[in-house]
């Protein structure tokens, strides 16, 4: 079963059917629902704080709408949607700085449980990859979970265990964004009791996590473009809106352009994931491209937005930091930007001169069909 099979049909706007494969945008009705939902959240939430805690009311509302387990199979109580829809949800939630563990609970934790054939009671899940000693660092939302899904590499085997939070040691910490990002210590017996899963699950976990982070970061960037534009048009300096200054126009144009690039890279990877249910051999390249572009664009967007907003944008009460801090926090998760660039370098050098373009178009360094010689 591929994600593709679950997606509703969209009108193909091309005159030449067959040129384009599966659509890459989520169902407009779903997008409208989500947009309204998170606009409500943005309008009703309290003033920003330096520490960010789980919004249980919002989580409850998402649960009622079937959005907390959007990609879970219907058999296991999920909504059976695919990555295209999940990316839209993650992006819009991140644009509203909604403090809810959608990626952890559904795309990672729920997926691992399903992959391992473990039951899912719908209780809030955090997720992590503990080290050989059973310790996992920076486990987002761990303290709020009912249980923690651990992916653990044990003597060449990968195991998945669903461990109730009461059975783990938990040191409360927070990340740059002020979100719970705890240190979790497992009892090794709980991990050893986990279900053995295919080796591919281990690599896919890292890719899924990285791409989920991209979808969140791009969603936050898109909201930043809106905030920046509004401010530039409203703020008057030297007798006119700062949007009239060429320097400000250029800062905003660069923010918007980088956001568009990050969006393109992310959507391309999401489309590939959805079309192949992550089985496409080009997933590593596609996710690496997204993580690299999103990460480098984040530097431009975060810096430029703060520059346009000025000092007001650095205050706790302003919305801007509720977006920029999570962007930078997520950028360092599931591999540093430097690591992903190294991955791409390795892929490109192994493709070499003659296969670099094939790598770019298919994600694979070797062509499926060799040209006739």
């Amino acid at each position, binding site marked *: 079963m591929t994600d593709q099979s679950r997606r509703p049909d969209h009108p193909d706007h091309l005159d030449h059917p067959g040129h384009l494969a599966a659509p890459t945008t989520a169902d407009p009705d779903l997008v409208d629902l989500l947009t309204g939902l998170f606009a409500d959240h943005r309008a009703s939430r309290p003033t920003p704080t330096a520490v960010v805690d789980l919004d249980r009311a919002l989580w409850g509302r998402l649960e009622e709408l079937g959005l907390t387990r959007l990609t879970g199979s219907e058999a296991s109580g999920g909504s059976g949607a695919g990555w295209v829809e999940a990316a839209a949800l993650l992006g819009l939630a991140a644009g509203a700085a909604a403090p809810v563990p959608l990626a952890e609970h559904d795309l990672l934790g729920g997926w691992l449980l399903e992959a391992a054939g473990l039951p899912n009671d719908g209780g809030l899940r955090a997720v992590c990859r503990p080290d050989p000693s059973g310790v996992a660092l920076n486990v987002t939302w761990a303290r709020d979970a009912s249980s923690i899904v651990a992916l653990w590499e044990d003597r060449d085997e990968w195991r998945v265990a669903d461990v109730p939070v009461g059975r783990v040691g938990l040191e409360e910490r927070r990340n740059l964004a002020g979100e719970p990002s705890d240190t979790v210590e497992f009892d090794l017996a709980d991990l050893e009791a986990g279900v053995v899963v295919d080796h591919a699950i281990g690599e896919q976990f890292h890719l899924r996590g990285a791409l989920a982070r991209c979808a969140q970061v791009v969603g936050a960037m898109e909201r930043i473009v809106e905030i920046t534009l509004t401010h530039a048009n409203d703020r008057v300096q030297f007798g006119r809106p700062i949007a009239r200054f060429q320097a400000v126009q250029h800062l905003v144009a660069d923010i918007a352009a980088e956001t568009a690039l990050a969006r393109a890279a992310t959507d391309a990877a999401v489309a590939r994931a959805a079309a192949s249910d992550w089985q496409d051999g080009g997933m590593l390249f596609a996710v690496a*491209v997204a993580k690299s572009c999103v990460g480098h664009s984040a530097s431009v967007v975060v810096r430029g937005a703060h520059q346009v907003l000025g000092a007001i944008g650095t205050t706790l009460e302003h919305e801007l930091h509720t977006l920029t801090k999570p962007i930078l926090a997520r950028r360092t998760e599931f591999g540093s930007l430097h690591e992903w660039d190294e*991955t791409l370098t390795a892929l490109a050098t192994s493709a070499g001169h003659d296969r670099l373009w094939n790598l770019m178009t298919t994600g694979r360094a070797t062509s499926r069909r060799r040209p006739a010689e």
Partner: protein
Amino acid sequence: MDHRLVPPVATEGPALAELRLEVRAFLAEQVAAGVFVPHVDTWLTRWDRDFTRELGRRGWLGMVIPTEYGGQGRSYVERFVVTEELLVVGAPVAAHWVAERQIGPSLLRYGTEEQKQAFLPGISRGEVVFGIGMSEPDSGSDLASVRTRAERVEGGWRLTGTKVWTSGAHEADAFFALARSAPLDPAHRHDGLSQFIVDLRAPGVTIRPIISMGGDHHFNEVHLDGVFIPDDRVLGELGDGWSQVTSELGFERSGPERVLSTFQLLAAAAQAMGDARLPTDPGLGRHVARVAALHQMSFAVSTALEAHENADTAAAVVKLLGTTEEGDIADYVDTLTASGWALDDDLSQLLHAAILQRPGFTLRGGTNEVLRGVVARGLGMR
């Protein structure tokens, strides 16, 4: 989501993937046979009328021109795929570039039936070669300030003025010239401009080379000294020249040539890094990622053009990011390079050519400064 500047990405279906491989296989054969040597910025610098005609024979020119005008009647996305394959392999495509990208679509949109019949079949066969005459010595980014004037005469117009930066004019058959057909009204600077189809062999046309900083001849100054243009070689509506030239910017600016001019250098650098002739560095990966993402963006714009959506702002984004990136690749490879210790002629020839061509990337077809203004306007800032 209101401020999404670029259409959603699209995924190539199997038909496009097949087309890619077909073109790629042909080009690999041509390289193997020594028909051309892969190079950078070939859509400006590598001129080969035989190769262009061969592409025409294979149906890879005039792809979006309807069959009744000798074209292939295919889609913009198919043309996009063929174009990318030609660019990444560094093929000599300059002879047909302007006609294929701008002249064909303009003729289809604004030309008379007679003009279409006169030019489109030859363009599709790669036999009629066109240039573009917009810029003038005193009008760089400020196109409305063109001074070439068109004076009404019996049966047509006489054009007098000087066009610059006309690539390939010394090899081309004709060009489109933007000229002032009514006096300048300072309050409406964009009025009174018209486009004319000028035979470059006509009396009164003088073509002088503009030599580039590397010593090459790609550009020309075209002097028009009372050149007669019959009425049937006015393009579109008289006085509508401004809206005609600007309406095609989506086509001119979003193409893969705004991203891939230095792809051969990037590929050579990947090879050299793999062979330890350059130091291993994550910067390569960063550039590979950006080019891959720009390929997605540029393709997305081509699907919008296919759907007849306005893509001017999206095209400005692609050109802004793409031309910066293709130039940054040249600078990046240069920072890895040490002279004096090893000769790597292929890489250094590509690098030097890329460095010499680079300044033009972010100038031609709208400077980065102009494009940021276009994006800002698209965002509602001006």
